[in-house]
């Protein structure tokens, strides 16, 4: 019994091996030789290359995008080697350079001329908190101090507040070669001119009035940044180049109102 069972097992095993050999030989005849050698990922690597024409690559991949990709890869916690993007991206911006750089140069030329780089050291002072009547909806602001004789762009940004310079209640936007006021009666006011001219506007009797967008001023805030320029300009991008920035928050004062009666004299 034992021997017959053992023989049967051996016979089945030999039969299986024969069948496997025959099927392998049959498959070898039908399938092309090189497909077996290629790695399964090979088509994924090779297929984009022929499909991407040079024009398509250059149009899609701008210089900015290549930087972003590089940062993403660099910041990625798993540094899985991805050889395909790097060689694809790095050479491609070069062919596009003539057109893209021309456009960039056209856009950036004024920036280079007007924005002073590096920005000079500026001292700007505003109170950290502005004590106001808790019911107040507007505030006449005089407490801004800075020093400098250069030309500046003063960027006011209101958080729940708007700015009103010059005539109260009127839009006093103004522009000439040396002085620009833009965004009067909005939360984003820009004044550009010499330091003296900006100070002069801020310290006129009308000054700069800050109005709440809704409700009381208390709790709202504003910020001011100063950017040194070579000539008056109000491009929003210059605001971001500032090295001097200050923020003030409106703090409600506690107010007491009372009546004191006249002091009487006691009869002796």
């Amino acid at each position, binding site marked *: 019994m034992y021997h017959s069972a053992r023989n049967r097992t051996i016979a089945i095993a030999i039969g299986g091996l024969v069948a496997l050999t025959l099927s392998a030989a049959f498959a070898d005849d039908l399938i092309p030789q090189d497909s077996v050698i290629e790695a399964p990922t090979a088509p994924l690597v090779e297929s984009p290359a022929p499909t991407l024409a040079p024009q398509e690559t250059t149009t899609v991949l701008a210089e900015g995008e290549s930087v972003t990709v590089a940062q993403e890869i660099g910041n990625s916690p798993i540094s899985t080697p991805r050889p395909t993007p790097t060689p694809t991206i790095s050479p491609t911006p070069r062919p596009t350079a003539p057109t893209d750089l021309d456009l960039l140069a056209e856009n950036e030329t004024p920036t280079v001329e007007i924005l002073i780089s590096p920005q000079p050291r500026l*001292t700007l*002072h505003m109170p*950290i*908190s502005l*004590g106001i009547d808790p019911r*107040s909806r507007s505030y006449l602001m*005089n*407490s801004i101090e800075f020093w400098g004789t250069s030309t500046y762009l003063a960027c006011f940004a209101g958080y729940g507040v708007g700015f009103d310079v010059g005539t109260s209640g009127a839009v006093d936007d103004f522009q000439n070669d040396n002085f620009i006021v833009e965004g009067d009666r909005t939360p984003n006011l820009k004044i550009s001119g010499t330091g003296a001219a900006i100070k002069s506007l801020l310290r006129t009797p009308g000054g700069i009035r800050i109005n709440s967008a809704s409700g009381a001023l208390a709790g709202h805030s504003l910020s001011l940044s100063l950017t040194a320029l070579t000539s008056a300009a109000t491009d929003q991008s210059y605001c971001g180049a500032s090295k001097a920035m200050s923020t003030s928050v409106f703090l409600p004062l*506690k107010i007491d109102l009372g009546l*004191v009666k006249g002091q009487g004299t006691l009869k002796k």
Partner: protein
Amino acid sequence: MSSGFNHSRPRKSKFILGALVLGAVPLLISTFAASVTVGNGSLEFGQGSQQATACDSTVYIAMGEEWHPSPTPTDASNGFFRVRAVTISNLDLTTCAGKKLRLRLIDGASGEITTGPTPDSKVLQISLPDQAPTSNVSDPIALGLSYLSGIGAPISTTLLATVSLSVSGTAIYDGTTLSATNADATFYLDPTAVTVNIDGQSVRRTTVETVNNPKAPGI
């Protein structure tokens, strides 16, 4: 047999109880602060704003600040924003005619801030005209500008402050048009900025008082 959980529940309860007690402390402090009485007993301090009880139901406060340089050897740009002026706005000079108007500045510790040249100068006072003026008045003598102590006693000292009672122009407080019933009384603490230089950050409360101003018999 007790487990760790049996111990943690009472601890958690104690922690919550402790947090509640700590949370209640500010409420207790503010409640006590509301009952502080300063002066000769007639003035009550309250939290937040209150309505005036006398000649004008709604007056407002506006505090103006300006940069006060205080350079140090290491920082030439050092300084602070001093209180330049305090304006009592929306003042009705017809109903408040003849009254005395007093102003105090209080710091964060409920202490009266010195507003004059002597340490006991805690109050600025003017006498409002008996008749509502038709033009702005800035004569400190005509308006009886003076310093008082915390309890309201007159102080005889050099007057550094100036005052302006405005019935025309625009209100400092809200830019509205001034009139006899919407007047501004502005106290300039020390226009020379030599002696009285109060850091605006230290002012946490202002007090406005109207005082009956009885005339002497025969006047």
